[in-house]
């Protein structure tokens, strides 16, 4: 009911705390200090802690495992869509959660056939595709060969250019190559 302590003191005349706990000190007439230091034995009211109402809730994780817990939410079921069960961080060995590109319609492959792989976010991973599709594997191999050949041609041209530098007559200009998209620049 009351949060006051039973020890009531008027601090006007008390200089330091040690004087208050010295019982042997004779009380001076002029002082108006009141000490109530005797033991008090009356019951103090302990308030019941205010606990909110809690429900039992069924949690369903993304892989279907469930458990119940107590919560203030009145919803009987909580279904989580993203949690530790379908996070790659917690399931490093799960191939299902790997960021594997799905290209069922072949639109990405068509784009690459036309414009090359220079638009890919990361380095191309050809191994998985070769394992899946022999035709695509053959095509990728041919692409790689052409790429190497084109690179070599370009290098030769550059060497010609270097060797011809400083000579009087201008070397014949290298024949115009058709535009060959390449991943490496």
């Amino acid at each position, binding site marked *: 009911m009351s949060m006051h302590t039973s020890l009531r003191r008027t601090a006007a005349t008390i200089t330091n705390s040690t004087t208050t706990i010295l019982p042997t000190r004779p009380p001076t007439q002029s002082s108006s200090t009141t000490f109530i230091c005797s033991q008090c034995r009356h019951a103090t009211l302990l308030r019941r802690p205010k606990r909110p109402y809690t429900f039992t809730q069924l949690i369903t994780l993304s892989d279907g495992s*469930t458990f119940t817990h107590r919560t203030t939410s009145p919803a009987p079921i909580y279904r989580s869509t993203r949690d530790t069960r379908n996070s790659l961080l917690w399931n490093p060995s799960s191939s299902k959660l790997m960021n594997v590109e799905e290209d069922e319609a072949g639109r990405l492959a068509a784009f690459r056939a036309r414009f090359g792989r220079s638009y890919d976010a990361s380095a191309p991973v050809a191994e998985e595709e070769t394992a899946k599709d022999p035709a695509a594997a053959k095509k990728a191999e041919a692409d790689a060969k052409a790429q190497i050949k084109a690179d070599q041609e370009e290098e030769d041209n550059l060497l010609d250019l270097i060797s011809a530098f400083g000579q009087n007559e201008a070397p014949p200009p290298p024949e115009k190559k058709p535009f060959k998209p390449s991943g490496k620049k």
Partner: protein
Amino acid sequence: MSSGSNGARRVASLLRPSIIDSGVCRSCQETLGRRSYSSAAPAIESTSASTAADPAVKPAYIINAGVVLSRPPQITRELEPFEKAFFFYQKRLNERLALPFTKYFYFKRGTPADEDWKKKIQERRTAARDIGKYNAYDSDAWNDELLLGAKESEPEHQVEALVQDAESTANATSQDTSKKEEIPRPYPRITEADKKNDQKSLDRLLSRTLYLLVQSKEGHWKFPSSPVESGETLRLAAERTLAQSAGINMNTWFVGFHPVGWHSFNPRRSKKADSATEIEAPGSKIFFLKSRMMAGQADLSVNTQDLKDFKWLSKEELAQYLNTQYYSNIKNMLADR
């Protein structure tokens, strides 16, 4: 100081009648020598005689590394009847002690959810769904005990009550009244593998730890184990053993570098009387390392350890497959659950 006392010891040992062979270390020699002055001299004579016979029958052991591969429990255990009753009692007690549910904080007045909530409270008399019909503020709030055979304290019953409540709410508040909303129930604790008792399946006994047991070509069951090769630590040997016996299609994790237990097979001696000390087959000591399995399945098709079968078994089932001595040596390193 040390040289002086050493010299004194040497002199003492020279003076003493030598009953001890040179193979015994100095501190032991001293102990034995001191005892030889006491009254226990005859006993020492007999022990020295037996130790003299020992080196000839020195047993030879092969050190093996074994793997205790376990699949940890996937679900919590079944509750005891007392625990169910206790938790249920606590729930009804909590109804009386906690503040009443503040409906208008969660449900806006006049919404379908609010109407549905009111209707349900009329039915079940309390905000909680899993404690049966009980109102903590009624005059009969004291009557909070269940009758014999009541289902309310069963966890399955409580979960079913939650799911049914969610279903009825979804049906009552949805715009489309033509189709019934169906909320999938949680998967049962008893799986298909439990019903078929498929001991190769990892879906069996979800609340227990399962251990991988392999069967050798001769037909006896054991944990995967193989001799430690030279220059190999116990842990490396255990990892190699697991890869060679159960394949690499498992996501495993070895708990430590030290063995959790061991078992020794004594060397077999030949029966002939003249060659009583001959060792026919050396014994082996198997040191088991603990390993946990996260994903995958054992695969014996590529094993190089002469194994023909494997099983995932709980601790109690292990006793039926292992021989008594082996099981008594390994049983204390297995988890109870």
